């Protein structure tokens, strides 16, 4: 049967033509195409990998931020607390100082009063003494006419003073 008898002509031409075709395409088509596709796949791969890395970095960065924020918050709290303490202490100290000052003022006032009182007393005594002398003068002027009576009077007065 002709159908299953390979003809020499076609075998001859197919061998040559297909052989050349494979070599031609290998050199000028498949190599550049496959290489470029490979390159592209690699670059896509790399891009994906670096994106993943960036995402990871972002994540760690975010975590860092969180930490820093927390630290800042803690520091602020600490500072505020310190401030409050300082204020309280200052107030306390001021109060203390005020108290001491007040006491000092009171004490000195009291001393002043005492002094004034003493001065007043002295004044009063002097006044009284003056009044007494005045009174005594007046009495003396009236009673001087009688020596005896004078004597009696003087003694009486002296007695009173004692």
């Amino acid at each position: 049967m002709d159908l299953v008898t390979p003809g020499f002509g076609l075998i001859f031409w197919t061998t040559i033509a297909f052989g050349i075709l494979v070599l031609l395409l290998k050199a000028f088509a498949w190599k550049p195409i496959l290489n470029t596709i490979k390159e592209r796949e690699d670059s896509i791969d790399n891009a994906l990998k670096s994106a993943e890395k960036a995402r990871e970095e972002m994540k760690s960065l975010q975590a860092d931020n969180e930490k820093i924020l927390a630290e800042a918050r803690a520091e602020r709290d600490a500072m505020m607390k310190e401030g409050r303490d300082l204020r309280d202490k200052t107030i306390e100290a001021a109060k203390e100082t005020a108290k001491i000052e007040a006491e000092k003022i009171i004490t000195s006032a009291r001393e002043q009063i005492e002094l004034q009182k003493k001065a007043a007393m002295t004044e009063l005594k002097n006044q009284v003494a003056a009044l007494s002398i005045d009174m005594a003068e007046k009495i003396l002027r009236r009673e001087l006419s009688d020596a005896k009576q004078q004597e009696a009077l003087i003694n009486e007065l002296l007695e009173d003073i004692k």
Partner: protein
Amino acid sequence: MRTTPIFSFLLTLLMTPLFAHQMPIPHDDHEEVTAQVPEIEEKEDVNDVIMHHISDAHDWHIFDWNNHAVSVPLPVILYTEKGLVSFMSSAFHHDDSGKEVVEKNGQRFVKYHEKIYYASSLANADGSYIDFDDEHHALNAKPLDISITKNVASLFVTIFLMLIIFLPAANFYKKNGSQKAPKGIASFVEPLIIYIRDEVALVNIGKKHYLRFTPYLLSLFFFVWLANMLGLMPVIPGGANLTGNIGFTMVLAIFTLLITNFNGKKDYWMHILWMPGVPVPVRLLLAPIEIVGILTKPFALMVRLFANMTAGHIVILSLISLIFVLETIWVSPAAVLLTVFIFVIKVLVAFLQAYIFALLTALFIGQAVEEHAHH
């Protein structure tokens, strides 16, 4: 002529349902059939037409006009006793019965059933310059025929198409580098190339060697696919039954055979010649089987592609021929619908066979380069 029993059986099987009632099953030599059943001459013609359509020819027939064949003449190249001789096939004036003698370089040639013979010195009773034996086989000597036949021309067309598809595609990549998405023809071929590389080469051959064989597999796949598709085209530049020609499939199978065996690793040959892990008598038994297996694998490749494409062509032509066989126009809707149906299937088969050829080639190469873990 020798026939493969398997193929005869296959062809018979194919033709039986279609031709059982209309015509005798075609035999090795249709002259025989004519002798046996001369009364169905008209129907026998259909068989002739089909066989003519799927065989090779020396000119590229386009259509008939007023009983005149309109065809593209192709160069005839003969390696004769006196060296190379060439002329255009139109010199035979469409004669295929050995009546028209072409004289060239002092030699005389006739064409009989698309074969070129040295013409006999005298014409026989029919007027043809061929001597026949009792079984109507030509006795004349034949020069070595390396003509650009229809199939060879179709082969060149296929190769031309391959080049104008893939060289510009490659140019795109060369020009644009890897940082640009494929466009145009490149975007069409890239998914297929990646598919062949990843699903055919990589899967079957393995990571270590696959890149070495990918160019061959790509060439094979696209070449067979394009040739198949061109074979489905009814008119020039298609219409030749290139991939349904056993000579063509044989060459491809031999390429695969050579590539497979030249790349066979130690393990591959060990498994063929001295199968490890089995007793010695079994090894002795297996070795011849495995050695035959080297040849049967590509042989199956050859027959598979050839039979698939030829069978498809025969089915399509048979369905169309139903109109002429039954001699009624009323069968044409059914015939045309069925033909369209088969045609669609053929488009699928054209791809599938190319894929299977590449896949099995990859599989064989994979087996050859595989390095086994120690047993």
